[in-house]
């Protein structure tokens, strides 16, 4: 299957997992990786820097209307929702918080699912609320591939369990198997 993008959502307990995943991806990884992680909305700086320490791919917080390119990791910026638009571009939104979150994982996943359809891999990691569950369902309903981190491995399994309740996910993987799977797409 030719995928066009990978989108990853996570919250409490996901930082180390995300760090492990992105550290394993080579600098020439052939897909854009979109990260929507819950974060303090008034802290704008520091997150990209922290994630970048071990990453071989450049990590950026996209500006509104930036093109989505392969070989990059995109992090949803603080206090904005991040959408994927037709024409393979990002857009940002200051609409109300969803599930107490801005960025909201559900909203990023909805827009990515709508635009990439079956050519999207959606992954939900550790987290303490249900944001992301409906998003992952929309990936599944649009024909994309859905993965959740094994709840037994999650520091906080609420988000992954909610996702598994919301839809029939394709894979429940440990962090290591998530990495292996992503590398198999390269």
């Amino acid at each position, binding site marked *: 299957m030719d995928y066009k993008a990978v989108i990853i959502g996570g919250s409490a307990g996901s930082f180390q997992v995300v760090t492990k995943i992105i550290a394993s991806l080579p600098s020439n990884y052939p897909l854009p990786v979109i990260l929507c992680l819950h974060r303090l909305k008034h802290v704008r700086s520091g997150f990209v820097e922290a994630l970048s320490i071990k990453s071989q791919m450049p990590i950026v917080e996209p*500006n509104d209307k930036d093109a989505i390119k392969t070989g990059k990791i995109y992090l949803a910026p603080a*206090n904005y929702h991040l959408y994927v638009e037709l024409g393979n571009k990002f*857009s*940002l*939104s*200051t609409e109300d918080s969803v599930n107490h979150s801005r960025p909201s994982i559900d909203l990023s996943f*909805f*827009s990515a699912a709508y635009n990439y359809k079956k050519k999207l891999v959606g992954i939900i990691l550790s987290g303490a609320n249900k944001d992301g569950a409906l998003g992952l369902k929309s990936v599944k309903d649009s024909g994309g591939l859905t993965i959740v981190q094994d709840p037994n491995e999650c520091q906080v399994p609420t988000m992954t369990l909610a996702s598994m309740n919301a839809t029939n996910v394709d894979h429940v993987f440990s962090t290591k198997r998530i990495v292996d799977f992503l590398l198999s797409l390269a």
Partner: protein
Amino acid sequence: MNNLGIVDTKKIIATINDSYGLNLADYSLTTLRRRFSHLMGFFSISLVDDFVQQISRNNIGYQELLDELMIDSTELFRDPSLWRELREKYFPEIGKTVGSKIWLPGITSGDELFSLMVSLKETELIDKIRVVASCPSNRRVVKIKEGGAYDLKKMEIGEANYTRLSGKFEFSKYYELKGNKAFLDNSLVKNVEFDNFNISQVMPNKNYRMIIFRNIMIQYNLPLYEKVIRRLVDSLTIGGYLVLGNKETLDHSEVGKKMQLVNETEKIYRKRID
């Protein structure tokens, strides 16, 4: 929620244009799909065809539609570091010229306006700098002039932002509680010049020293973004400033080359002397 297809979305856009003369064709699709879903929920309509019929029969008032369509979720003093920068560096510079004007095009709430007016008051520039605020909805203007009628939760966010900015006073001095709402001191906006000018449709006035236009163009597609940036640039004096949201850029615009990025973190641009 959020399952409107493109065909349905375009049908609604066309109907709104036919019925109200409001052209939404140049707005970003994801945002419109979400706003239309929101509107249908708000008016308790579940079928797109019913929604279209309600609009074309004028069963939904224009002001009501406009109000619910607009995104109204900024914050007082959103990005405190920007407001600190503005009040320490930019407002004093602008205030040196008698009759300087600052323009806020396209506000939908009092958030940006009250943040500006509190800042001008605390820098003792409120009587020196003229402020023009454009808001497409008359209802919203009335609400702003009454002090905003803020939900307490929203006021808490504003208060926290103000504290981060280390404002000069306790923020509570700027508002009072009536029932379950907070009203900002409306004497702050008594000299503000309000209009319901729509920058996407009409050519604006000129000679503004600063335009604060944050997180509005994120709702536009590229052609409308380009057109509006041209008007914004035209409206500024040479050396005038354009303040955008911190994740907005003029990089995607041709006419944006007339502007120089003078503060990258806060996205403050300055019109070049050419």
